[in-house]
């Protein structure tokens, strides 16, 4: 069993103030902390679980900056075997199809049974890369997978639909699966694994190494133009409960809830 797992290094913006640059073309990410995308973390775990059950190897694939190597080493520490990091300024990263084409360039020509990705990146939320990647590779796929069972030459999966309904289907291998959060319990990297990860191969490649011309994946190849980014105007009508400290706010809220007959 040969598996590729594609992971993305994303900023955690759940508690951060997000600012746009003056031109409205980029988010100022200098003060964000970055880590593996949530769904990708589950994809790594699933890849390692499959390897532990069926044997074989897992190759980590990521497009990202030098700093993302910390994340890649962590995946290696959890049991992945080697890694490829793609770095090239020319890739139109705002377009998931260009990202998928680049990833396909790194996989094509090699034998593989499975490619796993996260079903959504938390930063730009496209839910498109994995499914587009399958098409570039010319193999079947399933999106938002919550259960994987390897069969002979096939994989049986459960896709999570609205309301928690599961769609069970079978795909012929090789196939691409986009993994949904909650499919497993991602492990912590064991100390031994962390040491071993330092010795595993982590190859750095650019478009030329992948045999891709820039004009295949850059902003000229992309069929969309990211015109501007802006902070949406919100019409929040919430009554913000003020107070000198958390205690005072909590007490005020308690009174509001009781007086308003809400509790």
């Amino acid at each position, binding site marked *: 069993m040969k598996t590729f797992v594609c992971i993305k290094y994303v900023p955690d913006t759940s508690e951060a103030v997000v600012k746009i640059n003056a031109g409205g073309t980029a988010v100022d990410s200098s003060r964000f902390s970055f880590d593996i995308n949530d769904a990708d973390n589950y994809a790594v775990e699933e890849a390692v679980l499959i390897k532990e059950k069926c044997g074989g190897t897992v190759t980590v694939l990521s497009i990202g900056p030098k700093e993302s190597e910390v994340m890649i080493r962590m995946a290696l520490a959890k049991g992945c075997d080697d890694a490829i990091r793609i770095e090239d300024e020319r890739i139109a990263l705002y377009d998931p199809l260009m990202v998928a084409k680049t990833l396909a360039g790194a996989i094509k020509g090699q034998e593989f049974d499975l490619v796993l990705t996260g079903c959504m990146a938390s930063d730009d939320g496209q839910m498109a890369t994995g499914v587009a990647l399958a098409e570039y590779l010319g193999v079947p796929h399933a999106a938002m997978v919550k259960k994987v069972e390897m069969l002979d030459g096939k994989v049986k999966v459960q896709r999570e639909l609205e*309301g928690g309904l599961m769609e069970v289907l079978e795909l012929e291998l090789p196939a691409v699966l986009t993994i949904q959060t909650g499919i497993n319990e991602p492990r912590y990297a064991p100390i031994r694994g962390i040491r071993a990860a330092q010795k595993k191969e982590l190859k750095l490649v650019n478009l030329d190494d992948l045999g891709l011309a820039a004009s295949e994946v850059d902003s000229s190849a992309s069929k969309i133009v990211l015109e501007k980014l802006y902070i949406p105007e919100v019409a929040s009508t919430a009554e913000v409960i003020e107070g000198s400290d958390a205690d005072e*706010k909590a007490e005020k809220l308690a009174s509001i809830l009781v007086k308003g007959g809400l509790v």
Partner: protein
Amino acid sequence: MGNVLILAEHRQGAVRDITFEMLAAASGVARDLGGEVVVLLPGSGLDDLAAQIAAYGVKVLVVDDPLLANFNAEKYQLVLGAAIDAYKPSLVMVGHTAQGVDLAPALAVEKDLPFVADVIGLAVEGGVLKATRQLYSGKVNAQVAFKPAETCLVTVREAAFEALEPPGGGAVEKIECPLKEDIAYRQFVEYIEAEVGDVDITQSEILVAVGRGLREEKNMPLVEELAAVIKADLCGSRAAVDAGWLPHDRQVGTSGKTVKPKLYLAVGISGAFQHVAGMKGAKAVVAINKDPDAPIFNVAHYAIVDDLLKVVPKLTEKLKELKG
């Protein structure tokens, strides 16, 4: 030319709301492009569904074939691709749903279409089609323009557009299924219904909802005590369920339950659209979050911007005292 083609979405015998929402989204675009709205409805045994959609005053192209009985992304991609070749629409709309995200990106690659996912707004400016979408869970909006192309493709976010009243007067036309035999590489097996738990949160009057902001399972007693004092049921975000703090039947949102309590107390939940979709029907929403920009505040009636680990115990204590 100028037409908008919508891929109708249905499951287990019912048209899904996104279909009607896309009809609302499409009408303005079709007018600006100088075309009309056409709906493609693939499936099996579709007469009722076709009539229901045609009532919106549009032409429904029906591809009725037992091979299409259950959604299968690969087969539907073939059917939609054939319709694009035949009708050359300027814009194709697919839901940003479990069906749509499984199909649209592959179709975009196959047909080499300009593609924007999870669209919440569409406009034609100076003849150029533009889409609005969100990044960073709704903290940033992006305006994306399509380069000139014969056909563009979008997936449309659920509940981003409001369905209109059906005016009646549409038409149904049966077209041939381009698929002649079953495909082996992807086969539908069955649906498995979501598990039913001990409490049905869709019926709860008061809900305390917990999110990743709680940090650790060992903090669960904080919200359990709060819930006990106000006789609320506990529910949570997907992050809380994924972490194993709550069973899946307590998840609120698109892939969980849709709730409509009198009071919804969201604790440490950011308010991603997939979560909000499941709770925006609540009569009163209280949100406690330390991030003043958290999108949950856009749907809240009362907001506390502070550390939940400090607010919740005090809130519980005070409520206990007031309720005696």
